């Protein structure tokens, strides 16, 4: 679905590349998580995939049109001067849907993420979790086949985060979305993914390891954490990560240790 070949990316000519010779393949319908030390270039990689950042070398290719890729950002910045409805309608309007029609559809997507009747509000009138839901509605309204997410729930409290994750996963399963998610939460990565990729330290970062999650989907997001396979993988992944971040490295892992 998504193929990255020997991707290199430097900020400015002559600078040390953040990413170098990075390759990965994402199968259709696969849920892949990307973990790695803080500052190694995970966000940069996602930005290169969406075209927000131009690679210096290598290629990113998609089996679908770029219109079918949605990007859920880490922060929940919405256009503060547009109503919640118009924020969701924007993507549809950009595709030529007429204003009235786009707004009607936007209301439908808001209802789908549990924000029925919130269309007339300004973004500042919503809580952090609600703004995240609006951002999800913005993505879903594009009817994407591929969903890219950059630490989507990092700023939310545990309860909001749990329900949002469940809702999002039900969308992923229903629409059979192909997902690439950056996270710093090792448990979250294992619980949601088919495969976890470990990215090495930057600069010149690349993929250092692939970990297949031997559990079928859809999963019970709470129950899965007690499965032996889950705990074994968590241990493997953690030791691989510690090795990568390393005691001699000055970068500290921004990872959550699995409670043992």
């Amino acid at each position, binding site marked *: 679905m998504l193929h990255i070949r020997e991707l290199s990316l430097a900020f400015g000519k002559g600078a040390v590349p953040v990413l170098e010779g990075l390759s990965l393949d994402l199968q259709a319908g696969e849920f892949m998580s990307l973990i790695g030390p803080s500052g190694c270039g995970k966000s940069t990689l996602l930005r290169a995939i969406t075209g927000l950042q131009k690679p210096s070398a290598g290629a990113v290719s998609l089996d679908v049109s770029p219109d079918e890729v949605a990007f859920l950002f880490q922060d929940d*910045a919405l256009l503060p001067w547009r109503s919640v409805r118009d924020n969701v309608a924007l993507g549809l309007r950009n595709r030529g849907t007429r204003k009235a029609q786009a707004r009607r559809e936007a209301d439908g997507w808001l209802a789908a993420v549990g924000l029925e009747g919130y269309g007339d509000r300004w973004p500042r009138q919503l809580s952090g979790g609600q703004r995240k839901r609006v951002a999800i509605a913005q993505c879903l309204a594009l009817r994407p086949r591929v969903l890219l997410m950059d630490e989507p729930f990092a700023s939310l409290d545990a309860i909001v985060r749990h329900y949002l994750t469940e809702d999002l996963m039900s969308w992923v399963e229903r629409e059979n979305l192909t997902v690439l998610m950056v996270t710093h939460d090792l448990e979250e990565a294992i619980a949601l993914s088919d495969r976890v990729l470990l990215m090495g330290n930057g600069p010149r970062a690349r993929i250092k390891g692939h970990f297949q999650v031997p559990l079928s989907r859809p999963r019970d997001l709470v129950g899965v954490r007690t499965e032996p396979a889950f705990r074994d993988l968590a241990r493997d992944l953690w030791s691989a990560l510690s090795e990568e971040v390393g005691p001699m490295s000055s970068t500290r892992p921004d990872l959550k240790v699995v409670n043992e």
Partner: protein
Amino acid sequence: MSMKWLGVYARRALALAVVLAIWESLAANGYVDPFYMPPPSAIGAIVVDQFASGDIWPHLQATFGAALLGLALGILFGIFLGFVAALIPYLAELLEPVMAMLNAIPRVILAPLFIIWLGIGIGSKVALSFILVVVLTFFAVYNGIRDVDQRLVERVRTLGGGRLVLVREVYIPSVVAWVMGNLKVAVGFAFTGAVVGEFVAASRGLGYLLSYAQSTYNASLTMALIFLVMVFVLFLFTLAGMLERYLLRWKGS
């Protein structure tokens, strides 16, 4: 409006009434010389007489005309130049030092020059208002566009928005926000420009009347005119505030 605010207004009105009453009685009992410090009643009488006789109208018209024209042109050109400078780096290289210099000097010192260039008519007053407002607006827009929230730009781009959509959804609303944030200051500047211009050389306008009142040592007319300018500027402030609250309603209070 809540009772609390009514209370605040009532207390302010009361304080004003007390000050005016003391002032009036000091003048009436000869403690202050009315030649220098005319009582509020005398000032009020002049204001009423100016309107009753209709003498004030051409002057009001001249000052308002110059100030509003200078304000409108200043804002339009300020936005235009700010946009252009933010989008075309070469032009910014040329424009920025000029604007920075104009920003650093007290721009009213240009009044004599504008009168030499444009005569004592309305043109020189509009020019002074304009130059005061345009520099203010230019910097609001130029700096604003340069630090427009890049997250919003990226958001709109990933939602499939091109250049036009970016301008419509991000840049224009941002510019409106910055211009509105400066609108009250701009109104004050526009009046300063018009009145100072008239004060230096004119045949009409509140500034011209002020200069006439000063040259004839007419303190009551001077104070009456100062009062009028205050009232009109406050009135325009209120209008500007209403416009700001409407256009920036997404910000809340």
